[in-house]
């Protein structure tokens, strides 16, 4: 890996910024250079939000991500917005429980995963993002699953530590249900 540029995009509240933060944190734990950039603006609950994550083994010169090799989308507008930006041969992760349009490009590795349905099966619709993250790690190996575990342990505040087992389960579920 020289440099991996990723975009995570969806509605506010779907945990898109958190997934990006986890990736960046795990990248840092691995001793890599990382950058995490949120969209900021007149966002509001239910509006679209995205973040850019860069993980590189040398200093990140420009932190701007205009050609990501990995894109994860949680809604239709996000797919429409970022599909064209993905580098040829790049990975596109789609929460197909929520996205009902098809990507137009044929030169991408498309992973359509019904993450919200899976999350409901696990008993908590909020972990759809973590399921997709599991799939992303399985497919791209951009960070190791161990460091995502470690990142979760370090990031989650004490009172949310009880969510750790569910998050682990969601990660594993995502890893084994990669398509």
């Amino acid at each position, binding site marked *: 890996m020289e440099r991996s540029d990723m975009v995570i995009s969806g509605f506010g509240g779907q945990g898109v910024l958190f997934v990006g933060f986890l990736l960046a944190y795990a990248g*840092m*734990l691995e001793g890599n250079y990382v*950058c*995490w*950039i949120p969209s*900021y*603006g007149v966002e509001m609950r239910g509006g679209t939000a995205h973040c850019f994550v860069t993980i590189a083994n040398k200093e990140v010169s*420009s932190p701007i991500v205009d050609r990501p090799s990995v894109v994860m989308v949680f809604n239709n507008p996000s797919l429409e917005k970022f599909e064209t930006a993905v580098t040829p041969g790049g990975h596109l992760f789609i929460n197909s429980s929520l996205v009902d349009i098809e990507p137009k490009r044929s030169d991408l590795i498309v992973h359509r995963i019904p993450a919200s349905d899976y999350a409901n099966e696990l008993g908590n619709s909020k972990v759809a993002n973590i399921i997709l993250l599991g799939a992303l790690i399985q497919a791209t190996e951009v960070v190791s699953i161990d460091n995502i575990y470690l990142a979760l342990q370090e990031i989650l505040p004490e009172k949310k530590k009880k969510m750790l087992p569910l998050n682990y389960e969601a990660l594993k579920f995502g890893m084994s249900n990669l398509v």
Partner: protein
Amino acid sequence: MSKKLLKGNEAIGEAAIKANCRYYFGYPITPQNEIPEFFAKEFPRVGGVFIQAESEIAAINMVYGAAAAGARVMTSSSSPGISLKMEGISYIAAAELPCVIANIMRGGPGLGGIQPAQSDYFQATKGGGHGDYRMIVFSPASVQELYNLTKKAFYLADYYRIPVMILGDGFLGQMMESVEMDGQNDTCEPIPKPWAITGCRGREKQYINTLYLVPEELAELNDRLQEKYRQIKNSEQAYEEYYMEDADFVLVSFGIAARICKEAVDLARDKGIRAGLIRPITLWPFPEKAFADLTRAKNILNVEMNAGQMVEDVKLAVSCKIPVHFYGCTGGLLPSSKEIVNRIEMLGGTPK
């Protein structure tokens, strides 16, 4: 491991606490709200004082008061809010008081937008408020540098008794990078402040004042200020060079735009163009020393997220002996490295 994943805005707060700053007065404005948020949350733990003032003007005058009493103190805002603070900054400069002011710039003029920009260069480096004053202006380009320079800012403010501005932008303030908090050169230990207004029991009365009705006395203040500024110009210029050893095409850029320029230099070098970058870290004093010996340079391209505010400083630094071109964007848009390379090629930066 002592690395932390921090937003630029949070790094300012962490650095301030590390530098023993215990007073923050501010007023909310995007894109720097994580700074007051940080202090509101963290200061109670270390015995600091956080006040959300009724306005930016009130906040900067609280800074004036706290600095006069000898406290390490800071405020922060974003472009329109910094404009409101200008009167206070002029007073603080005249009173020769130390403080740190962070400006996480957004697009202007007027209320402008909330996306990142670098269009307060003139305001920060050429005065902004009234009178013949200067402040030290730091332009960090990474979250780590934001952390380091904020600490240094407190030290230099005390050392020279001068306001120091951290000039970042919305992009840098919002972005997260890993920050090494320990093992940095700690140039931030407190400096005794015998001039501070701390109550005069047992000593002579002393004053902090900016009103001088006798012209000679005001001239004396100005002479003293100018001497201080000369000293700072000699001692505090800071810059980074990137691939400058053999560069015949020189980019000049500060802050986040300079990061984009680094990528442009890499791309240009891939094409065989001998490009290099000078990145001013202090905007005032402008790092003239970086331009003193540019014998190889045939062209200079200045890249900024504004309409070309640094161009004249670059021209002065090279005494107009090398053509200085400009590429920039305004409104909160970011320059692209590919476009910068296009400009380099258009301007005759040819492969060797």
